[in-house]
Each structure stands twice: as C-alpha cells, then as structure tokens.
C-alpha cells in the first residue's frame, strides 16, 4: 500500500532540498560526501571511497581528517534537524576516537544524533562505520554553539 501522496511529496521535497543544500557545500563536494538520510534529531551522510581521501598511498588508508569532516558535517546536520530550522551554528569542539581503519575501498557512513539541546549549546554524538553500525570505525562526541535571533522586548 502506498503512503498518502501528500506526505511522500513533502518528504521527497525536503530530501531534495537537503541533497541540494549539501551538494552546494564545496568541501563536502571535494571529498564526495553526500546525503544519506535524516530523522527528527539525527542525520546520516555517506562518503563513497575516492582517491583524494587517502592519507598515504603506501597504506591505502583513508585520512582521519576526511572522516573528521564527515562526522563534523553529520553532527552539524543533526543539530539542524533538532532545531528544525537553519539557524547559524558553529562547532565548539569535536572529539574523534579512531577505533580501526575502514576496509579498503569501503563507503564510510557517518551517523550523528543531537541528544541534548539547550538555548545556546547542542550536544552531539555519533559513529562512523564501513557497513555495520554495530562495528564502528570511529566514535564522535561534540558540542555546537547555536545563535538564535535576539527577541526584542
């Protein structure tokens, strides 16, 4: 059974907007990072393998900086989902634990969720994995500052 046509169109419209928005971010385009999916307080991005992500051709390992970029972006995207609007945000700090290297040539998926939001600070956590979210290649924890419009009394 098909879902109601209106809901589906709205979802698709939102997804297309997000896809378009992300493809317009130059550094994500440079690394090949693309939209995967989203929810009320989480977001998922994917980074299919590409040569320019390699730290070192001797080892064929993806640069940790590329995985950092994936997770920072997924985290910011999750904060925007939690906010429900595009307010200006900036990363305060972000910690990555690199548990193991991804399988050679694998697509790396970055999933982040915003688990607490205060008026000014958003708290995020997430994982990067190469196929199985239960066996992550990296863990992420971070905080963002949110700039809300000032209400004039």
């Amino acid at each position, binding site marked *: 059974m098909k879902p109601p046509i209106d809901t589906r169109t709205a979802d698709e419209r939102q997804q297309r907007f997000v896809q378009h928005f992300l493809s317009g971010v130059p*550094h994500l385009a*440079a*690394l090949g990072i693309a939209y995967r999916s989203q929810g009320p307080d989480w977001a998922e991005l994917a980074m299919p393998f590409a040569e*320019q992500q390699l730290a070192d051709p*001797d080892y064929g390992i993806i640069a940790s900086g590329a995985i950092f*970029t994936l997770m920072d972006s997924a985290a910011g995207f999750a904060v925007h989902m939690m906010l429900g609007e595009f307010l200006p945000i900036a*990363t305060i700090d972000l*910690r*990555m634990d690199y548990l193991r290297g991804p399988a050679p040539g694998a697509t790396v998926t970055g999933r982040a969720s915003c688990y607490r939001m205060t008026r000014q600070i958003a708290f995020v956590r997430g994982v990067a994995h190469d196929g199985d979210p239960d066996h992550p290649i990296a863990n992420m924890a971070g905080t963002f500052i949110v700039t809300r419009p000032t209400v004039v009394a």
Partner: protein
Amino acid sequence: MTSTALARALRDERHGRLDMLPYARLLDLRFEQDDNEVRLIMPFSLGLVGAPGRLHGGALAGLLEIAGLAAVIVAQPDADRLPRLRPVTVTADFMREGTPVDTIAAAEVTRLGRRIINVSSRAWQFDRGRPIAMANINFLADWPEA
C-alpha cells in the same frame, strides 16, 4: 601513516609541497621548516569552504592532524627508522571562524613516547597568538620489526 615520501621530504627539504599524500594534495598543503619547527600552509581555495565564506572545520582538523604528523616525524631521533603513526584520538577546539585567506599550522610534541605520542597542534591566520583552531592528538606508533 608515516609516508616514507613525506619523511624524506621533511628530511631533505626546507620547504615544499605535500603532493605525495592524496588528502594533503586535496588541501593543497605546503610545508616550510626552520631549526625550530615545521609549519604547514593551507592556501585558501573554494574547495575548503563549509558554510558560506568560512573554512570547513573538517579541513582545519585535517590540517591540524597533518601538522601533528609532521612534528612527530621531525622529532624522531632516527630519520631512517620511523614508526607507522596512527591517530587514536583527536580532540579539536574551534575558536574563531576560518576566513578565506591562508591558514598556517604548527604542532608541538608534548611527549614523545615509544608507543603513544602526545601532540598539541595549532592553526592560525593573522596572528599566531590568536589561533582559529587547536587539536590535541594522541598517536600510536607501530615500530617495524627490528
């Protein structure tokens, strides 16, 4: 991820490019060194932009990590026998927005252990005393079999 090519460049040249490393080439990194330290330069380019008019924090983190790696390589007592280095944890703090100009980074090895190497890395644009981002990086060193 110690590239032998990177180690050779840092041993033999005072300045140059890091094109031997694909990700460093994406960031268009150059290096320069004097007797005290290695500095990395990341020239502004459109491909580094995250939010409009600002450098992506991930590009800054990538720069900080490679600056850390370079500092660890030059700190090794024997340039011909280097461990394979992998970051275990990276904690990056972002202090100021990265504006569309060149960014410079340099790192200090806080402790050069045999297995764990602690590094503090700093990136700045106009004033070294006003960093735009810093990172604490803990590398694991894997030594080749003797």
